[in-house]
């Protein structure tokens, strides 16, 4: 759900390739099979374009909204090293939004439309950012584990078929490695610190575990649509696949620090090699994503504040003769 393809229930009736020119479609699919990238002005099926716009746009929104929970502690980071690193980290997230909005724009949706849709609730962003960062330790958990989840998603998607999205993700991933290291370092300091620090980080982990389990989205329903999106390299892995990869890599690292994950059923099945866990409450996930989370309202209000307060700056410099062109790449 962090910029992963999902099926719109309204699309269900028709096939994703209905009405497409079969010759062009075959060429398009052959190109993807050969491992070549699709570039902005190439012919592409309408469903490919639509799905990618939705996915990249949501990813961009997740970055700009994601700057808010971590920004919560930007004025309170303890010590120069953390203060500067958190500023740089949140700045990078804003930068990721910049890169992703730009990639989505090449598909024909303007940044204005995307931001309007975000603020008016027509377009979603990652569910996790609707939860509050209650203490400094929450920012540490976010920077480590939410970014870890994001990296799994982003590395996977960077092998997709759409050129501009892959290019943006490559740069993003190189910055994410700093986020991950910073986050881990931060958690390690808390977990190996004073009793109070340890308690802070354990509490934060308890608060964030469900959002983390929600991060990659509910298990995908197997459908023809999913198959097509995978063939088109829009969807590069199932939500569960990415969740398993996350658990595989990070649960042991969490346990290394002697922290407790608040799920008694969490374990790797020795014989099957599959992670077993308590299925998180997907009803809560749906509720939160549809607007009823602890911070949805504030997040969008803040975004609206930023856009409204910046309006005079943008309008002052807007020249009457300017004309919109879709960026090249």
């Amino acid at each position, binding site marked *: 759900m962090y910029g992963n393809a999902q099926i719109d229930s309204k699309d269900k009736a028709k096939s994703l390739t209905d009405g497409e020119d079969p010759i062009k479609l075959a060429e398009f699919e052959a190109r993807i099979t050969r491992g070549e990238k699709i570039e902005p002005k190439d012919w592409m099926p309408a469903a490919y374009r639509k799905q990618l716009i939705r996915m990249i746009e949501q990813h961009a929104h997740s970055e*700009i909204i994601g*700057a*808010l929970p971590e*920004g919560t*502690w*930007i*004025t*309170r*980071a*303890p*010590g*120069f090293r*953390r*203060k*500067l690193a958190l*500023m*740089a980290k*949140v*700045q990078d997230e*804003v*930068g990721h*939004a*910049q890169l992703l*909005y730009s990639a989505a724009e090449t598909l024909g949706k303007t940044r204005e439309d995307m931001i309007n849709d975000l603020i008016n609730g027509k377009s979603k962003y990652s569910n996790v950012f609707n939860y509050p960062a209650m203490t*400094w330790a929450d920012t540490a958990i976010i920077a480590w584990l939410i970014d870890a989840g994001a990296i799994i998603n982003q590395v996977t998607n960077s092998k997709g078929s759409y050129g501009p999205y892959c290019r943006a993700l490559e740069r993003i991933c190189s910055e994410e490695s700093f986020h991950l290291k910073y986050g881990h370092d931060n958690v390690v*300091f808390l977990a190996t*610190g*004073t009793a*109070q*620090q340890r308690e802070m980080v354990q509490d934060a982990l308890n608060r964030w575990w469900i959002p983390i389990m929600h991060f990659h989205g509910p298990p995908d329903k197997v459908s023809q649509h999913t198959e097509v999106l995978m063939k088109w390299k829009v969807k590069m892995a199932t939500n569960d696949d990415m969740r398993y990869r996350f658990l595989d890599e990070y649960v042991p690292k969490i346990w290394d620090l002697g922290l407790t994950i608040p799920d008694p059923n969490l374990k790797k099945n020795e014989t099957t090699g599959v992670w077993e866990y308590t299925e998180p409450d997907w009803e809560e996930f749906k509720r939160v994503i549809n607007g009823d989370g602890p911070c949805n309202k504030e997040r969008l209000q*803040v975004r609206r*504040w*930023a856009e409204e*307060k*910046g*309006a*005079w*700056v*943008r*309008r*002052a*410099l807007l020249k009457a003769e300017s004309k919109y062109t879709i960026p090249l790449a």
Partner: protein
Amino acid sequence: MNYNETQIKAVKEFLYKIADDQLIIGHRNSEWTGLGPLVEEDIAFSSIAQDKIGQAQHIYEILHSLGEADADTIAFTRNAAAFKSCHLVELPIGEYDFSLMRNFLFNHAEQIRFDMLANSGLEPLAKLAKKYRGEVKYHTMHANTWVRQLGKANEESHARMQTALNDTFNLALGIFEESEFADILKDLNIFPGEKVLQYKWIEAITPLLEQSMLVLPESSAWQPVYGGRKGFHTEYLEPMLEEMGEVFRLDPKAEW
């Protein structure tokens, strides 16, 4: 350095005031992160904030080498009365016009100060001034571009920028509050004095404001807001410092 006690005191006070200004304005600017008028500008403004805080940290480290506490303790545990920052940097971020104009006025003073310090007799300071020359230059370029463009873009932006200038100018004059140790610093060839700096600053900003169609207040109306260098601050500084040190002060023995 073979400075006597008073001389060392003079040097420390001088360093504190530069670093405190940078820390506070950098902290204030960081509040814009994620809230800027355009994502690209958000990124640029955050970099400027980071630069300022990084420079402050470096100066605190020089102070540490002169026997003061370490940089984190200096920045995150002192109370307002111990700060030597001017009032200009302490005020809340306001709207973007205010924050831009504050930066414009501050950055020019800082750039000229650093230029002067590049030849300072205090070697670590001279080195520092040279090292950050490029950072500071970008900060003034950024401010000049915005002020020049918004000053003359349309009626609203012009009015906003003029109001911001009127609101910040006397505060900015507070940057140049003279120290009781000015003569010592001059004799030691460390810094020629705030008067010289202010003179050069007016020289630098006057043509830029003219190009921006903004009017500098008449010199007869100048009323510098002093006090910051002596530890008297606006009502905003203490809560800001409490906020900044909130986590750090949770447990003074903890490592974060």
